[in-house]
């Protein structure tokens, strides 16, 4: 009786560091096994893919808001790369926006890297606008004419010298707007943009804030949602299946994602079983 008790107590008050090692291994080991993992795309990710194909057909440019910083890089950068690869492979012109100061260099580097893969030229096929504060005012003015808020692009040239922007004025000239963020920015795009100008809007969000966007999907204010690293993996799967482009870090991390989730589920189940066994035993002693 007593050593079972002692064993339970040891397990229930196990040192945190043991748990840390277990979760670290469950994430690190699968990288060595690199099992092939195929992902079924969900409804809202396929909707984004189809909308991008529609943009290719009407050959209108798209806007991508890179509103993430290093803290949510792991989930949103694979998404950004998958979307950019899809856009560039279909010759869709991309305008990059940014309202998170800590993410400016991240967005510029990501766009340049993917553009280099497809031989796309800055200023002709893609352009990146600088960071601006007061995003609510910038989003409102973007519906009238973005030249009211932006006088130069990120590298310092005035907007007149950018061939891609010559025919563009506001949201109507773009097929859709995609915002990648873990912050409140997507809600701001809806409040200050979609409500006033009714353009097609898609969000790529961190999994933490995914549930709060579903009312906007149901009401039609948003037409697609990519959720976290799994969403990125789904999109990479779609792009690979249809356009045979290489998959990125989203798919690469899915094996570790699987092990990581299973470990957490097992922890919750075992933790509760031990807790109730311990409580019933202490009830018997009393």
């Amino acid at each position, binding site marked *: 009786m007593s050593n079972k008790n002692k064993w339970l107590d040891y397990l229930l*008050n196990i040192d945190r560091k043991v748990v840390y090692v277990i979760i670290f291994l469950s994430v690190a080991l699968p990288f060595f096994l690199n099992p092939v993992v195929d992902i079924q795309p969900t409804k809202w990710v396929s909707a984004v893919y189809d909308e991008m194909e529609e943009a290719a057909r*009407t050959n209108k440019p798209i806007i991508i808001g890179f509103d993430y910083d290093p803290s949510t890089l792991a989930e949103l950068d694979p998404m950004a790369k998958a979307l950019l690869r899809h856009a560039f492979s279909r010759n869709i012109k991309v305008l990059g926006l940014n309202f998170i100061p800590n993410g400016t260099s991240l967005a510029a580097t990501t766009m340049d890297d993917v553009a280099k893969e497809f031989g796309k030229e800055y200023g002709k096929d893609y352009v990146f606008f600088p960071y601006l504060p007061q995003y609510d005012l910038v989003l409102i003015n973007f519906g009238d004419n973005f030249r009211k808020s932006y006088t130069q692009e990120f590298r310092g040239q005035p907007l007149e010298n950018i061939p891609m922007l010559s025919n563009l004025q*506001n949201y109507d000239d773009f097929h859709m707007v995609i915002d990648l963020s873990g912050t409140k920015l997507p809600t701001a795009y809806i409040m200050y943009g979609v409500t006033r100008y009714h353009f097609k809007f898609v969000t790529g969000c961190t999994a933490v804030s995914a549930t709060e966007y579903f009312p906007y999907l149901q009401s039609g204010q948003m037409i697609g949602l990519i959720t976290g690293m799994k969403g990125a993996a789904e999109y990479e799967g779609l792009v690979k299946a249809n356009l045979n482009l290489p998959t990125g870090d989203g798919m690469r991390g899915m094996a570790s994602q699987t092990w990581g989730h299973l470990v957490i589920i097992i922890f919750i189940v075992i933790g509760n079983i031990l807790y109730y066994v311990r409580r019933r035993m202490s009830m018997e002693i009393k």
Partner: protein
Amino acid sequence: MKNLLRLLVILIVVSFAFNSYSVDTVVVTGKDSPNDKGEAIDIKWNLDTSLKTSATKVFVFRKVQGEAEYKQVKELDITAEYFNDKNELKNNTPYMYYLEFRSATGEVVYKTNEYGPFVAFPQWVNTDKIPTFIFSLVAMIIILIFIRVAKSGRKLYVRPLPGVQAIEDAVGRATEMGKPMIYCPGISVISDIATLASISILSRVSEIVAEFGSRLVVPNYDPIVYSVTDEVVKGAYVKVGRPDAYKADDVYFLTQRQFAYASGVSGLMAREKPAANFFLGWFMAESLILAEAGSMTGAIQIAGTDSISQIPFFIVACDYTLIGEELYAAATLMGEDTRLLGGLKGQDYVKLIAMILLIVLFVLKLFGVSGIDSILVGGN
């Protein structure tokens, strides 16, 4: 009534500017685009299928009526059948338009006749936003009424909350066991409603603590919030008539960095072995560390936050959790902050109107009343 009014306005606008007369395989129609500052004309045209295959681009040409020279204003893909002309367009001046359909090689496949004159003029009020205007006024008036009523000191009914009972039981249990309690007022600034609610609850909790002489430790994240909590706890001891029993170093400023605060409070819990922990206010990802450290010491844990992303963790790790606005309601029941009471009641009645609106519209829709599905947010 509102729909009739809106139909009337649109009819006038359409009849005045809607004039396309010549017969043509491609008919171009134009009118001032409604509800805007003017300087915009909506151009529409219908495409027969033969054009769609032969041409790939549509070019829109425009000139002021009476001028000689046409100017190209827009280049569109063949799939487009609508164009909102907004660039450098002046109000109250008649414009003539014609379209050119060109193939991939650029040679003109088809050129339409001239259409117009179309005139753009500004509107003072966006008729689609009338429902929003009405609802905004109603909401603002109700909120202001209740702020004034609460300030005048009148007692307003707030339903009993099981959470308030849970807090008082936890304080009672800790006092019985003679063990300390830890109270975290959240990691936000003083102007945050969640922090104000937390301080209002703290004032009641510290009154009970002062009465029974148990010990309450309050580690703070924000220096200004610290100065307020210090004031509140000391005030409770004075109110109970035992000013000397107040231990100043139990209420202190710990740190203003998120994870340092979490590990600081975890260390405090490991050392003091409290019987009850309170996490009331605005929290971020560090809530996980606090709740876990607290549950390891076996203490009763009561949490309350309006930070939606942290509520799931508090629910599974704590004994009772006040969800979202329940934190404000508990604060009005436990403290005497009339601002919180006014805010809560005002928002409650606006919520009641939202519920009634939802029910009424749903019932009207069941009875098949037309126009319900765009009554609140205009035609678009």
